[in-house]
C-alpha cells in the first residue's frame, strides 16, 4: 500500500512540474510582458521599468524561472502586481472558502446521487427510472452559474431564507455553514446528476454479471444480493470518477463563487484576470491544478484500498 502510494506520488511530481512550467512560460508570452499588462498601455516607460525591477521581471527569463521554482518550493508564490502583497497569504485566506464549497458540493452529490443511481437502476424502464434519468440530464445540462442564480432568486431574494452574498464569518461555524448552503447546494445538485448517472450505469453493468446471477440462483434474498454483491462492485468505478468530478467541481466553484460573492480562489482568479495581474493568475492556477492532482491521488489510493487487485497492475 505504502509502496504504491509512493510510486504514485513519484509519477505525479514530474507532471506537476510540467504544469507549473507550462503556466509560467504561457504567462510570460503576454504581449509586452506582465508589467506592461498590469500597468496598462498608457504607463510611462519609467514606471514599467521600475515595476519590472521590483518584481524581478527584468532578469533573463531562465533566471526568473529558476527563482520562481526555488521560491515555489519554499511556498512563496511571489507578489501581486497590483496590491504588491504576497500572493501566498492571500491564497491561504481564500482557499478554505473554495475547499468548503467543493467538499460541501461533493457531499451533497454523494448523499443524493448514490441512492438515486441505485433506485433508477433497480427500477429500470419504470416511471421512477424515467423521471430520475430526465432529472439527471437536466442537472448536467444546467450551467452552475445559472442554477446558482435561480436558487439565489428563489431562496434568498423571493423567500429570504438564505443570505444572498458573501462567505460569512469564517470563525463562526454557524455563519460559515449558513453562507455555504446555497453555493454548495448549487454544485451539489449538479454533482447529484453526474453521480447518479454513473452509479446507474455501473449498477446495470454489475447486475448482468455472473456472480450476481449466481447469488440470485443460490436463493439469496434480493436485498442481500443488491447490497452485498452488486452495490459494492458498482461503487468501485464510481470512486474512480469522483476524482474527475472533483476537478469539475473546482472549475464550477469559480463561477459559483462569483455569483455568491464568496471570497475564494475562483473569485481571486477572476479578479486577477480583470486586473491583468498575471502573477496572481499564475499562482492561483497552479494551486487549482495542484488540488486536482491531490484529489486524483486520493482517489487512486482509495481505489487501491477498495479494490486491492489494482496495485499489481
Amino acid at each position: 500500500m505504502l509502496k504504491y502510494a509512493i510510486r504514485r506520488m513519484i509519477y505525479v511530481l514530474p507532471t506537476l512540474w510540467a504544469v507549473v512550467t507550462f503556466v509560467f512560460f504561457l504567462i510570460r508570452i503576454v504581449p509586452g510582458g506582465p508589467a506592461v499588462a498590469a500597468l496598462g498601455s498608457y504607463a510611462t516607460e519609467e514606471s514599467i521599468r521600475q515595476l519590472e525591477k521590483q518584481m524581478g521581471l527584468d532578469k533573463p527569463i531562465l533566471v526568473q524561472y529558476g527563482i520562481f521554482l526555488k521560491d515555489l518550493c519554499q511556498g512563496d508564490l511571489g507578489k501581486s502586481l497590483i496590491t504588491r502583497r504576497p500572493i501566498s497569504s492571500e491564497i491561504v485566506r481564500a482557499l478554505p472558502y473554495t475547499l468548503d464549497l467543493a467538499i460541501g458540493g461533493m457531499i451533497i452529490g454523494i448523499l443524493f446521487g448514490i441512492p438515486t443511481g441505485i433506485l433508477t437502476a433497480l427500477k429500470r424502464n419504470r416511471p421512477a427510472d424515467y423521471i430520475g434519468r430526465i432529472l439527471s440530464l437536466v442537472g448536467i445540462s444546467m450551467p452552475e452559474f445559472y442554477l446558482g442564480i435561480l436558487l439565489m432568486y428563489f431562496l434568498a431574494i423571493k423567500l429570504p431564507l438564505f443570505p444572498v452574498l458573501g462567505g460569512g464569518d469564517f470563525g463562526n461555524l454557524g455563519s460559515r455553514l449558513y453562507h455555504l448552503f446555497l453555493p454548495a447546494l448549487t454544485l451539489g445538485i449538479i454533482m447529484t446528476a453526474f453521480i447518479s448517472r454513473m452509479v446507474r450505469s455501473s449498477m446495470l453493468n454489475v447486475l448482468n454479471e455472473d456472480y450476481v446471477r449466481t447469488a440470485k440462483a443460490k436463493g439469496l434474498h434480493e436485498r442481500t444480493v443488491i447490497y452485498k454483491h452488486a452495490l459494492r462492485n458498482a461503487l468501485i468505478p464510481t470512486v474512480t470518477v469522483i476524482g474527475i468530478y472533483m476537478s469539475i467541481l473546482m472549475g464550477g466553484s469559480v463561477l459559483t463563487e462569483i455569483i455568491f460573492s464568496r471570497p475564494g480562489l475562483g473569485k481571486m482568479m477572476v479578479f486577477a484576470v480583470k486586473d491583468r495581474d498575471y502573477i496572481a493568475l499564475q499562482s492561483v492556477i497552479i494551486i487549482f491544478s495542484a488540488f486536482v492532482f491531490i484529489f486524483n491521488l486520493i482517489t487512486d489510493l482509495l481505489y487501491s484500498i477498495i479494490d486491492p487487485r489494482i496495485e499489481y497492475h
Partner: protein
Amino acid sequence: MATISQRAILLRTFKSNKTSVVGLILAFCVVMIALTAPWISPYDPISQDLDIQHAPPSWGHPFGADSYGRDQLSRILWGSRVSLVVGILSVLFAMAAGIPLGMIGGYKGGRIDSLVLRFIDIFMSFPIVILGLLVLAIMGPGLIKIVIAIGVALTPRIARLARGSTLSIKGKEYIEAARAVGQNDGKIMFIHVLPNISGEILVMGTLWVATAIIVEASLSFIGLGVRPPTPSWGAMIRDGLDQLTNAPWLSIFPGLAIFISVFSFNLIADGLRDISDPKLRG
C-alpha cells in the same frame, strides 16, 4: 464499417429511441434559430431605446428589455449564433488535434504512448473552464480565440478517448491482416482504425458540444467572451445579474436558452450511447 443493413437497423433503433429524437428536434430548432436570426428577430439586437430600459416582458417585448433598452428576445435569438459556432467549432478543433494524437499513442505504444499519456495528464489537470480562462487571458477576447481556448481545453479529453478506443481494437484481426499485407502505419490508422473508433467519438463529440456551450457561456459570463455589443447568452446573464431583484427576466431567459441548447445535445448523446451500448439500453 457498418454495412447498409446494419445502418438501417441503427437508424431504426435511433428512431425508436425517444430521448434522442426529442433531442434532435430541439437541436434542430436551435440550429434553425441561429441560421434565421436576422429574419425572425423582431428588433435589431444592438439598437438601444432608453425609454424601455428594464421593461418587463410584454406583447411588444416578450422577454423584456435590458439596461440599454435592447429587446431581449432579439438578443437571445442572435446569441444562439455565438453559442453554436463556438460549441461546434471548438469540438471540431479538439477532434482535429486530439484524434490523431490519441490514435498515434494507442497504436504505436511504448515511448510515444507514454509521452502522449503525460501530455493528457498535464492538460487534464486543468478544469476546462480554467484552462480556457488562462488561454483567453493571454490572447485577449474574440470569437476565434474562444474557439481555440475551448478547443485546447477539450483536446486532451478527446485524445484520451481516441487512445482508449484505439487500444481496444489494436489487436483485432483486420488490423493484423492489414499489417501482414504490408500496409504502412499511417494508412492503417487512417483506413482501419479511424472509421472503427469514429462511432464512439461521435457520441462523445455530441456530449462535448454541450460542454463547450456551457464553457463558452461561463467564459462570457466572466467577461472573456465575444466583444460587446455582440449578444452572447453568458454575458447577457452577467449584465442582468445586477438587476436580479427588480428585473429577474434579464438573467432567467438567456439562462433558459443556454439550458435548452445544452439539454438538446445531451439528449442526443444519451440516446446515441444507449444505442451503442445495448446493456444500458433504456
